[in-house]
């Protein structure tokens, strides 16, 4: 973890204790990145500005719950921004539920015994695991994450049926998990 990331954790601990100066500092450090996230997913400046407000209000209220969990703070901050933006996107542009989603594409899937890997920082390992995926599928995973695309939009992008895209991504997730657990 970098020094900057450690500062994020320390600041969030203080924010949990309602330290407004720490909140101010956290904003100045994290807002440009979180604004970039909102902007990329929402693709509208005004929407992104509104979203950024909501994100920091969620950070203020969620800091207490987060700070005792001892996970790294930076991914959490990014997750708050991504989740809020994606929720907004989905509520505005509803996607049809995947029809006939009986889970058949993962019904026969199993995962080996889990390694005690929960505490390890796996941030970099994901890069290697992504390379083990078929390149088009890796691209779909990345695009889904970065742009906040739905299954439907991904299927259109890649010119494949919805069910195919869903199976692709689910199998990719299982492969990633297996690779990370190794």
């Amino acid at each position, binding site marked *: 973890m970098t020094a900057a990331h450690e500062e994020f954790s320390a600041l969030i601990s203080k924010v949990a204790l309602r330290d407004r100066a720490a909140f101010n500092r956290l904003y100045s450090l994290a807002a*440009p990145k979180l604004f970039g996230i909102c902007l990329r997913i929402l693709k509208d400046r005004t929407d992104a500005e509104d979203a*950024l407000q909501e994100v920091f*209000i969620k950070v203020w209220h969620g800091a207490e719950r987060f700070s005792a969990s*001892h996970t790294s703070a930076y991914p959490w901050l*990014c997750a708050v921004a991504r989740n809020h933006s994606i929720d907004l996107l989905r509520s505005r542009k509803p996607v049809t539920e995947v029809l006939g989603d009986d889970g058949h594409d993962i019904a026969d899937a199993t995962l080996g015994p889990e390694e005690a890997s929960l505490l390890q920082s796996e941030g970099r390992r994901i890069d290697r695991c992504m390379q083990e995926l078929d390149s088009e599928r890796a691209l779909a995973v990345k695009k889904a994450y970065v742009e906040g695309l739905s299954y439907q939009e991904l299927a259109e992008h890649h010119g494949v049926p919805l069910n195919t895209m869903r199976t692709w991504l689910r199998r990719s997730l299982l492969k990633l998990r297996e690779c990370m657990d190794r």
Partner: protein
Amino acid sequence: MTTPGQSEGDRARDEVLAGEYVLGVLSAPKRVEVEERIRRDRQFALIVRRWEQNLSSLNEEYEIVAPPSLVLPLIEARLFGEAQSRTSRPLAQQLWTSLALWRGVALASIFLLGGTLFFTSQQQEARPVAGGPSLVADLSPQPGIGTAAMTLAARYDRTSGRLSLTPVAAGAADQHSLELWMIKGNDPAVSLGILPADGQGSVTIPDKVRPQLSEGVTLAVSLEPYGGSPTGSATGPILAVGRTRAR
């Protein structure tokens, strides 16, 4: 996370669902469903948290874009109210005025009692605030990955103003002190005093604070340098946190 009674197929299903949620491909109703489950299913919350950490290197794809300068004042106005926005005030001024006094008293008692740490105040002998039911709180590390630092059971006797803490599971604290804080709404945390290194002990809540120590406030324990936070705000990690409830 494999739990007893859960098949490997179930685990695969949970991993996929959590991964789909973190990727963001699910529909709005499905996302609401998953968020609901994150709140009530600790194991599942850990799986989601792990995907968030695992995929976090993809965050490098996002550009850094300076937001317009009006956003922060808007956020602060919404959180703290226009008049109370105190971001330009130095940190020290944000301390509750009597906090320094209390800490001084607490430190003095450390010297007087040769290492037996407890918190007291000049108001200790004052007339107790009228009764009402006792409050209890379980303070624990919240769902997430990592080391569970400590778990404490707190009990507040409104008649005597005494808040007792018992560690259920405590980590080593060495040359540090455990500081107890009360958080109410959006106000800065108020230090309630220093606990012995093993977390066992009680503090007497000063009369001034008693009306605020009610059902639903948050109690938190942070790890501080020996003798307590030097700044009046928590400087160390929060080890345990929980809300009070009537008993």
